[in-house]
C-alpha cells in the first residue's frame, strides 16, 4: 500500500467513525423525530444539513467538470440549481412549514381533498427520488474503487451499510446531524484544492477572485479568463466565456432546473424540521449560503482545471512551449485515469505526441478520443501536483456528498411509503409505534433497491436525471404553489393539471430518449436540429409546468369550487400565527 492510499484510508475511515458516532447519539424515538427531527433543528444548522442533502455526487464531482468543458453554457446549472431556492423561500417553504405535517404528498392530498392527488404525488416522489439515489450509489462505488482500490461491489456495500446504520436508526434526526458533519467535510474538501490552485495560477487565495485575476497575479500578464479563451481558440475550441447554444434553450433549461429544484420533495421536507415559520424563511437563505460557497467556487475550479489540462498537453510557456506532450512522457495521473477507461488517447497520426484540439482546428485530428468530464474534480489535485492529504480529502468529500444526498432521498422515499401509502391510505388505524417500525422497514427496503440498481445500473442511469427534474418541475411544484396561492384550484383541476404537465414532459423526454429510455424506440435523434424549437428534453420541465398551471386553472374555473373547510385551510397556511375569524 502506498502512502496516498494509506492516507485515503485514514481520512475516509475517520469521517465514517464520525458519522456513526453521531448516528448513535441521535436515535429517533418517535415518528415526529423520524420524519421531521421533532421540528427542533436550528435554522442555520438546518441550512447546513440542507446544503449537504442538496449537493450530491453530481454537484461535487460532475459540475466543475461540466463547467470546464462547456464554459459559459454550463451557467444553466449554476443559476438553475441555486435560483430555485428563491422560489422555495418565497413561494413554498414557510407555508408548508405552517401546515405542519410530515410529507409533501400529505399536503397535496389534504389541500386537494383527494387520495388520487396524494397517490400521483407519491408516484412522482418515488420515481424522482429513486432515479437520484441510483446515481449516488454509483458515485459511492466509483469513489471507493478509484481511491481505495477496492472492488466496485465492496465499495458500494460499505456505503450501503453506513447509510443503513444512521438513516434507519436515526431517521431525519440522525440524518440531519450526520449531514451537518458531512457538509463540513465536503466543503473543506472542495475549497482546499481550489485555494491551492488559485494561489498557484493567480496568487490569489480566494478562487472567486482568482477567476477574474491576472495570470500569476502580475498586472503585466493576461487575465486568466482571456488566457483561457485564447488558448482554447488557438487550438480550435469555442471561446470559454461566450455562449454557444441557443438562447431559448439556455433560458428554459435554467428555468426548468430552478422550478425542479424548488419541487424536489427531499429538499422541501427539510424545511418541515425547523421550529417556526420564521425559521423556515431564513433557513432557506442559510441553505443557499452554504450551497453558494461551493457553487461560486465551482466556476473557478472548472476554468482553472481546464487551463491546467491544456497547459499540460500543449504548454504555452517554459522549455516545451508550443510543443505537444509526448505520450511516453505523460504524467502519472494521466496513466491512472487511462486505466479506468475515462481518459483515452489514440495516436492517429503516429507521431507519438498527444494532439488535443477542437473542431475548428484544420491542422490536426483530435487524439484525446475520450476525456470524461467526471474526472476533472477528482484528477484536479493530481494535475496541479498537490500534496497527498489533499487528494485523500477530495475522496472523503466526494463520498460525504454522495452519502448525505442518498440518505435524504431514502428518507423521503420511506416516509412517503409508510406515512402516505400505508398510514394515509391503506391502514389509517396504524399505531404510532408500528408506523415507526414500517418506516424503518421501508427505509431498509429502499436501501436494498437502490443498492441493487447501483450494482446493476440501468443503461439509462445518466439520462434519468432529466426525468427527476422534469417530474418535480411539471407536477409537484405547480401543485404546491397553486395550493397556497390560488384558492380557487380544486381537486379535479389539480389532478388533471399534474397529469397533463407530467404527460407532456414525459412524452417529450421519451420522444428523444426512447420510450421508457429504451434507446431504439426513440422517435427522433436526440440532437438540437430535431428538438422542438431547439429545446433540449432536459429543458422541457418549464413547459410542462406551464401546461400544468393553465390546465389546473381552466378546469378549476369550470368545475365546483373547493369546499369551505379547504378555503379555511388555505387562509390558515397563509399566515404564520393563528387566524382570527
Amino acid at each position, binding site marked *: 500500500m502506498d502512502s496516498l492510499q494509506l492516507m485515503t484510508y485514514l481520512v475516509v475511515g475517520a469521517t465514517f467513525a464520525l458519522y456513526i458516532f453521531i448516528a448513535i447519539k441521535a436515535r429517533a424515538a418517535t415518528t415526529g423525530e423520524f420524519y421531521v427531527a421533532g421540528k427542533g433543528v436550528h435554522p442555520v444548522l438546518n441550512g447546513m444539513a440542507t446544503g449537504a442533502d442538496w449537493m450530491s455526487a453530481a454537484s461535487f464531482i460532475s459540475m466543475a467538470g461540466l*463547467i470546464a468543458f462547456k464554459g*459559459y453554457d454550463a*451557467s444553466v446549472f*449554476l*443559476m438553475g440549481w*441555486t*435560483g430555485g*431556492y*428563491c422560489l422555495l*423561500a*418565497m*413561494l413554498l417553504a*414557510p407555508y408548508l412549514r405552517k401546515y405542519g405535517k410530515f410529507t409533501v404528498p400529505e399536503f397535496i392530498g389534504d389541500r386537494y381533498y383527494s387520495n388520487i392527488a396524494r397517490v400521483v404525488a407519491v408516484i412522482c416522489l418515488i420515481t424522482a427520488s429513486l432515479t437520484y439515489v441510483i446515481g449516488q450509489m454509483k458515485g459511492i462505488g466509483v469513489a471507493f474503487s478509484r481511491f481505495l482500490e477496492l472492488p466496485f461491489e465492496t465499495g458500494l456495500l460499505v456505503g450501503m451499510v453506513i447509510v443503513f446504520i444512521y438513516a434507519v436508526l436515526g431517521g431525519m434526526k440522525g440524518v440531519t446531524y450526520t449531514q451537518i458533519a458531512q457538509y463540513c467535510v465536503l466543503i473543506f474538501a472542495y475549497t482546499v484544492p481550489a485555494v491551492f490552485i488559485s494561489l498557484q495560477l493567480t496568487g490569489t487565495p480566494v478562487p*472567486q*477572485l482568482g*477567476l*477574474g*485575476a*491576472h495570470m500569476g497575479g502580475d498586472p503585466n500578464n493576461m*487575465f*486568466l*479568463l*482571456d488566457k483561457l479563451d485564447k488558448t482554447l481558440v488557438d487550438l480550435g475550441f469555442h471561446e470559454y*466565456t*461566450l*455562449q454557444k447554444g441557443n*438562447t431559448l434553450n*439556455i*433560458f428554459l433549461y*435554467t*428555468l426548468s432546473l430552478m422550478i425542479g429544484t424548488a419541487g424536489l420533495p427531499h429538499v422541501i421536507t427539510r424545511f418541515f424540521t425547523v421550529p*417556526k*415559520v*420564521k425559521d423556515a*424563511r*431564513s433557513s*432557506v*437563505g442559510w441553505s*443557499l*449560503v452554504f450551497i*453558494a460557497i461551493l*457553487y*461560486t467556487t465551482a*466556476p473557478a475550479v472548472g476554468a482553472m482545471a481546464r487551463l491546467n489540462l491544456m497547459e499540460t498537453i500543449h504548454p504555452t510557456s517554459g522549455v516545451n512551449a508550443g510543443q505537444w506532450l509526448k505520450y511516453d512522457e505523460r504524467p502519472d495521473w494521466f496513466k491512472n485515469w487511462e486505466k479506468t477507461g475515462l481518459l483515452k488517447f489514440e495516436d492517429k497520426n503516429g507521431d507519438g505526441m498527444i494532439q488535443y484540439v477542437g473542431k475548428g482546428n484544420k491542422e490536426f485530428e483530435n487524439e484525446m478520443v475520450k476525456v470524461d468530464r467526471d474526472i476533472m474534480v477528482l484528477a484536479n489535485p493530481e494535475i496541479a501536483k498537490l500534496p497527498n492529504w489533499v487528494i485523500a480529502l477530495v475522496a472523503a468529500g466526494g463520498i460525504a456528498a454522495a452519502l448525505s444526498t442518498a440518505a435524504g432521498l431514502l428518507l423521503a422515499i420511506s416516509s412517503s411509503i409508510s406515512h402516505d401509502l400505508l398510514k394515509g391510505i391503506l391502514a389509517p388505524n396504524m399505531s404510532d409505534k408500528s408506523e415507526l417500525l414500517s418506516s424503518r422497514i421501508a427505509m431498509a427496503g429502499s436501501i436494498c433497491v437502490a443498492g441493487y440498481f447501483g450494482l446493476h445500473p440501468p443503461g439509462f442511469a445518466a439520462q434519468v436525471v432529466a426525468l427527476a427534474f422534469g417530474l418535480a418541475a411539471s407536477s409537484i411544484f405547480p401543485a404546491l404553489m397553486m395550493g397556497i396561492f390560488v384558492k380557487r384550484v380544486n381537486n379535479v383541476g389539480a389532478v388533471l393539471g399534474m397529469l397533463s404537465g407530467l404527460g407532456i414532459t414525459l412524452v417529450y423526454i421519451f420522444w428523444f430518449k426512447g420510450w421508457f429510455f429504451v434507446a431504439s424506440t426513440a422517435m427522433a435523434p436526440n440532437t438540437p436540429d430535431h428538438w422542438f424549437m431547439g429545446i433540449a428534453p432536459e429543458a422541457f420541465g418549464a413547459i410542462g409546468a406551464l401546461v400544468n398551471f393553465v390546465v389546473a386553472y381552466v378546469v378549476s374555473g369550470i368545475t365546483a369550487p373547493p369546499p369551505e373547510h379547504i378555503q379555511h385551510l388555505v*387562509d390558515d397556511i*397563509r*399566515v*404564520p*400565527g393563528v*387566524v*382570527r*375569524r
Partner: protein
Amino acid sequence: MSESGDYWKANIRLVIGCLVVWFIVSYGCGILLAPALNNIRILGGYPLGFWFAQQGSIYTFVVLIFFYAWRMNKLDEKFGVQED
C-alpha cells in the same frame, strides 16, 4: 378578515418585487443581456455577463432571500400575525 387580506396583498407585492430582481439578475443580465454586458469588465478580468451567469446571480439570490425573510418578519409584526 380584511386585515389578513391586506397582509396577503403586502406579501404578494413583496414576493413580486423580489422575483423581478431574481429574474433580472439571472435571465436578464446572465442570459439575455449577457452578450452585450460582456463588453464591460469587473473585478479584474470578468466579462460582466459571464460574471452574472456564474457568480453575481448566485450572490444576489442569497441576499434576496434574507431581504425577503427580514421584510416578511416585519410584515408579520405589523399585522400582528406572527407566531407566539
